[in-house]
């Protein structure tokens, strides 16, 4: 039986290929000159350069954090190239002008953007390495006043908005990797939903790391004004490489009065091979600020890739009656390590938060949930419910939970529950008895285990996520 389960976890990475596109790469190394180069290349205003330099100077003084429950070789920040852009063509009028090689890449990934985007009603802002190559559906969104573009474009066209909100949720000196990102970020997405507008479609971005040895420093900023609402989808895949790649993204969400932001992620970057060679280091800072009253921010993530995942999508619930949600599935296999969870900081009155975390570990992997629920002294009537479940497949992996609960207000109610289980032999026997093979049975049991989270995903992503978990645990039944 256990050999079946062991075999179930050996699915090779399906998206492992390198697209040969000439990239405009900055020399390796990090210094103020590199930052000035990035800023100059992107034709940025003075204030943004200042912000970058401030972050860089802050970063120099900071120490690499040691507290996460992950192990990795020391990163040489001078061996990374901080800027790489596909050779620029003139402004693209239509999809036909996009590099055919690039289009083929998306084809292999199963993202025929020109068709699928329309069919699914999704506007896809494609990030290929660090520069936004094509943006669709922009006009349609512009009709209702929504700005959805790459962050470099936003810096040029809406500098007042970017300046107002950039770094307001994750300050430049917030943590080691956020400071690094603030200093060297090259591109990312910007989304602005004006007052009272409900975004007519789900927005999504496909991130993809391509050039070997180029760290990706994405920056995403989403602002929902009073009464606005948006659902944002982010999906990731990356090609197979042997050297570790650092990815230190920053995502900032801001919800004003009565606004609603839903942020969904499916992350399937290259996780390294069975022996833990290669794979992406995913050190991400994601934070949402419920600034206004009755605002709501919801994070949903399905983390299946990366050699190391280290991220805590968080909510700062400042507005009264604001709501924070976190739904997560983290699957680790082989030598993968994940230290993920959330922070819910309750400041406003009657703020509510829900945390549902499902961790699945297989192979020799290490999967940790680390969460913080903090109730400030002024957060009267705050309410939190947390539930984190772990499932272990095999006896070489580990599952850990580190929930921090800090309560400073007697009017608050905080509940936390956690459990650990495995796929029972009798469950598999039951399936076998009904004629369902072990592989399919495991897939079904896992889907049942993750149901609470998958239900939160938008339809297309729910399908993709279900498939992805199946793929990740699939293998020859021995």
């Amino acid at each position: 039986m256990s050999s079946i389960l062991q075999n179930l976890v050996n699915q090779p990475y399906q998206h492992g290929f390198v697209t040969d596109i000439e990239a405009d790469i900055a020399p390796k190394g990090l210094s103020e000159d590199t930052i000035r180069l990035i800023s100059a290349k992107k034709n940025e205003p003075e204030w943004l350069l200042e912000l970058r330099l401030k972050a860089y100077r802050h970063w120099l003084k900071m120490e690499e954090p040691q507290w996460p429950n992950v192990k990795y070789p020391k990163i040489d920040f001078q061996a990374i190239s901080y800027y790489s852009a596909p050779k620029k063509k003139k402004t693209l009028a239509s999809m036909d002008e996009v590099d055919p090689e690039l289009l083929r890449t998306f084809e292999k990934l199963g993202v025929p953007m020109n068709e699928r985007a329309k069919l699914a009603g999704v506007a896809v802002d494609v990030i290929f390495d660090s520069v936004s190559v094509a943006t669709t559906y922009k006009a349609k969104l512009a009709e209702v006043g929504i700005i959805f573009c790459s962050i470099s474009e936003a810096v040029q066209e809406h500098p007042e908005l970017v300046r107002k909100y950039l770094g307001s949720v994750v300050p430049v000196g917030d943590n080691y990797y956020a400071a690094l990102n603030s200093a060297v970020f090259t591109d990312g997405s910007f989304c602005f939903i004006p007052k009272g507008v409900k975004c007519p479609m789900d927005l999504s971005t496909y991130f993809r790391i391509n050039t070997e040895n180029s760290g990706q420093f994405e920056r995403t900023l989403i602002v929902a004004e009073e009464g606005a609402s948006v659902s944002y989808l982010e999906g990731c895949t990356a090609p197979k490489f042997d050297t570790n790649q650092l990815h230190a993204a920053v995502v900032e969400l801001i919800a004003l009065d009565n606004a609603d932001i839903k942020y969904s992620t499916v992350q399937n970057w290259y996780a390294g091979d069975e022996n833990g060679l290669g794979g992406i280091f995913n050190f991400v800072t994601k934070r949402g600020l419920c600034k206004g009253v009755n605002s709501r921010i919801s994070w949903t993530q399905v983390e299946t890739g990366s050699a190391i995942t280290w991220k805590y999508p968080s909510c700062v619930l400042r507005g009264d009656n604001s709501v924070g949600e976190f739904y997560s599935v983290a699957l680790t296999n082989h030598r993968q390590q994940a230290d993920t969870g959330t922070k819910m900081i309750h400041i406003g009155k009657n703020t509510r938060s829900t945390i549902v975390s499902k961790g699945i570990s297989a192979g020799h992997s290490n999967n940790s949930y680390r969460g913080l629920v903090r109730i400030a002294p002024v957060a009267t009537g705050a309410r939190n419910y947390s539930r984190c479940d772990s499932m272990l497949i095999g006896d070489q992996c580990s599952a850990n939970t580190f929930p921090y609960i800090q309560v400073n207000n007697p009017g608050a109610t905080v509940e936390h529950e956690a459990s650990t289980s495995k796929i029972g032999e009798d469950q598999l026997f039951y399936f076998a008895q009904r004629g369902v093979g072990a592989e399919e049975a495991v897939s079904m049991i896992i889907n049942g285990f993750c149901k609470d989270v998958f239900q939160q995903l938008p339809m297309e992503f729910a399908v993709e996520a279900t498939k992805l978990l199946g793929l990740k645990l699939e293998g020859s039944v021995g």
Partner: protein
Amino acid sequence: MTEAGTGNYLDSLMRGQAPLQAASASPLWLKQLRARAVERVASLTLPNTRDEDWRFTDLLPLTQLSWRPVQGAALISPQELERCALPEAAARLVFVDGRYAPQHSFNHAGLTVENLPAGMTAQGAIVEAELARHAEFEHDAFAALNTAFLQDAALIIAPRNAVLEAPVQVLFVSTQQETASYPRCLVIAQEGSELTLVEEFVALHQGAGFSSAVTEMALADNARVRHVRVQNDSTAAFHIASCAVSLAKASRYQAVSVALGARLSRYNLSVLLAEAGAECSIDGLALIGGRQLADSHTLIDHAKPHGISRQLHKCIVDGAAHAVFNGKIMVRPGAQRTDSSQSSRNLLLSGKARVDTKPQLEIFADDVKCAHGATVGQLDADEVFYLRSRGLSDAAARKLLTYAFGAEVIERIAIASLRARLERAVQAQTGEAS
């Protein structure tokens, strides 16, 4: 004490004490043990809030105080003794300001219940095999301090298959303010033996004091120990204690610890399920108010298969008090069929009260059942309303519900007189609250 002085604070604690009397009579291995501990104290520093284990418990107030050596004879009046004596006890050991008080102690238990130096003459080999083997002091400055000052200590040895129903009471009494003491207790339960230990820490003054206690327990195959620990130190005192328990095959350890006193208290309980089929249940209650801080760190380490552990930790926090709980459950590789559950329940009674709780699971085996839960909240409004509808005043309803919250832990103590005494303490405290 200056900032730079926090590292040297341990040295000042070492110097502030009178040299150990009669230490020259100790066997060589004990002298070497002490010397090693002295060495460790010299190289360790006092933990600060940057250490994960001390994040919420700031020892800075401690470093601003210094302690004088204990003066005079170790004596308390019979009335004072009466207040904390257990009528059920089959044996009692009393330590006054860290020193053994033979005139207050007795032993009808039929087991070894003695002061360590006396007990060692007959049981030297057994003691040598266990003393300081369970409570490591390599990285723990307070355990190292305690070991460095190791002289008078409670020694309890239950021989093979000895079963004692009545409790053994070990009483550590503080009578002098501004002194430091290092209570120590060693319990050895041999194969198939059974005993109940009641450890109590009381102060007969309201002044400051510092104590760093260490308790060690070694349970052999099929042994069973019930352990009740009551900390009722002066509300100006600093009480830092650790208890290390090691469980052999199919042994059982049941503990209830109650923290009532001290300005700052810290209790580290670590239970190692070293062999298959061991079982432990550890419960705790912290009942604090004013500006008290009660910190409880527990570690249940499942090293071998088929272990069972149960834990219920409750805190009732009033005034501007601060309760900290960190409960770690470790399931080592190969510790299959482990069944563990842990629950942390916290009741906040005032607007300034604060709770930091962190139940923690680290699991390295797949065939296990582990669950933990934590809640923080106030009294349920519906429950208060129900009692009020039955004619109770708001204050009486709250008092009753708070009492019931704490009683769940106290009820697990099998000794009637102690249970009654603690129930009165809870009532007294909640009475002030309402």
